[in-house]
């Protein structure tokens, strides 16, 4: 290709032949980085009967797809997927590899990075090229933004979550090359995915919700959490959480909003009993109206929202729910 830099790669992911949105979002970002570096965007896609998905990646901005299309690749197999990516990376060494921080990505990325003996950064919220054209991998931490770089080892590897970068507009006029890859055989066979079971999530999905109620440590206990959950249900909102609530066991990891959780962009965000910790707030993007209820008047959350109520959420939320229900009933009867 006659460039100074090798390609920018994205390890794309499909589930049941549905391309994951984070893969498209990373292609979009990779495109921008590659254009600055004067190089190409390449993606690896593994699955079974996924040619159409390969085309989607090209429409999103990829120049070349390394396609592994075989029944044994239908679901994520750690040994096989790692071996394929590592072999490809050795055969066509990339400059950068980006991976979505899905449950698969968060396992595959370190397996690949350790095999390639290179660095890997987790949960990035931005990628920027510095003056030396090295990838600055930015993560929020302790009130600031850290830039992490991998100055010497190659490829530079990083993960980012769905929703950090925008989904690119597909350009069906784009062309690209698809290379079929050989499936390795003779692997040790010490680990095998037997089956993957997924259920429909309950309630309103966080990523598309117009209103989100997020609860934190201030819930106090399960009873307090139930009230917050009821508030969400009463408002037909999605229920989100911070890490302390997950750690206490009041809610599942799937509801966690933040740097190591989900990125959300609701119209209205209501934070209950949480202190506006950076790790969480960085996951809430572009809300029109933000509201917080917290019993500590000094809480940093009140510097990040439009309306604040200082009160013990365990006492206030039941009262608020009563008022909301009263209002809703009036609307029905008027």
């Amino acid at each position: 290709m006659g460039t100074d830099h090798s390609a920018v790669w994205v390890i794309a992911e499909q589930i049941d032949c549905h391309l994951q949105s984070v893969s498209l979002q990373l292609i979009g970002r990779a495109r921008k980085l590659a254009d600055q570096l004067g190089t190409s965007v390449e993606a690896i896609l593994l699955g079974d009967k996924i040619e159409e998905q390969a085309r989607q990646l090209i429409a999103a901005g990829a120049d070349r797809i390394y396609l592994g299309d075989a029944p044994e690749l239908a679901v994520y197999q750690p040994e096989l997927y790692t071996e394929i990516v590592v072999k490809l990376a050795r055969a066509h060494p990339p400059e950068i590899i980006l991976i979505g921080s899905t449950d698969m990505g968060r396992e595959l990325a370190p397996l690949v990075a350790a095999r390639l003996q290179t660095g890997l950064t987790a949960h990035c919220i931005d990628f920027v090229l510095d003056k030396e054209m090295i990838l600055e991998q930015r993560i929020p931490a302790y009130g600031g933004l850290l830039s992490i770089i991998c100055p010497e080892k190659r490829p530079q590897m990083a993960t980012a979550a769905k929703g950090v970068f925008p989904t690119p507009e597909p350009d069906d006029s784009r062309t690209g090359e698809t290379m079929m890859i050989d499936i390795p055989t003779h692997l040790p066979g010490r680990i095998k995915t037997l089956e993957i079971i997924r259920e429909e999530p309950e309630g309103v999905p966080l990523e598309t919700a117009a209103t989100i109620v997020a609860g934190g440590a201030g819930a106090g206990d399960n009873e307090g959490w139930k009230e917050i959950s009821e508030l969400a249900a009463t408002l037909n909102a999605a229920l989100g959480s911070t890490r302390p609530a997950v750690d206490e066991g009041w809610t599942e990891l799937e509801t966690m909003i933040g740097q190591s959780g989900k990125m959300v962009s609701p119209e209205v965000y209501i934070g209950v009993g949480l202190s506006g910790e950076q790790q969480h707030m960085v996951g809430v993007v572009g809300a029109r109206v933000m509201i917080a209820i917290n019993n500590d008047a000094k809480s940093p959350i009140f510097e990040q929202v439009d309306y604040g109520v200082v009160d013990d959420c365990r006492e206030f939320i039941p009262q608020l729910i009563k008022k909301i229900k009263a209002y809703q009933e009036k609307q029905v009867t008027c």
Partner: protein
Amino acid sequence: MLNIVVCVKAVPDPKEACNIKIDPNTKTLLRCDVPMVLNPLDKNAMEAALQLKAKFEARISVLSMGPPEAGNIVKECLALGADQGFLLTDPAFGGADAYATAFTLAKGIEKIGSYDVIFCGMASSDGSTEWVGPEIATFLDLPVVTLVKEIVDCDGASWKVKASVENGYRLMQVELPAVLTVTRELNTPRTLSFSGIIKARKKEIEQWGVDELGVARETVGLKGSPTIVSELHAQEENKRQAEMISGTRDEKADLLVQKLVDAGVL
């Protein structure tokens, strides 16, 4: 005899973590005032090992890389029921990223010698990369399952475990020896007991540095880390000026309902 290694980390107490600041010169964390505790998910890793020990004849070694003070959490694991402790401590290990940490821990595990299953918490509450478990596995050439939420079958040398995926699980068959990183859902960790603390008096903690591990200084710590922190930026704040809603509880609730109506939620 099932040989179990549990990798644990001393982290700043997550309940007081908001007090931690970044040192703008070294670009590492200033942990001084916040007490160090056992990483919460490592308690689940310890509990998994202890439950196996109750089922089978097993020996639990607990391993940690950290400053000398990290010996306290190793002792705590001995009091929970581990049989012996190993602390990898040396100034040369300092400033390590996930890669160098995993490399050093892998060397420690090699030195321990016998291992059938290695448990790690899926992530630490401070670094939170989730990389160390899988990278240890790669350095030791072992299979790994991350996000383990249930051990379905652990009789024999081939185990079945459930790993967490969004809204579900993947059922994995894995041959021992293997690395398993665990989630909070796997179990409810037991608390320290007085008799456990007494029994720990007889248990030993060995301390190993660069020389004992036989590693080159360039392969560990800051020197052995492929990634470094290059810059600390002031974050563009999501600053909004909150209008505080006040009054009695009743009044506040009414006012907030009005705000929700204005915002189009109701």
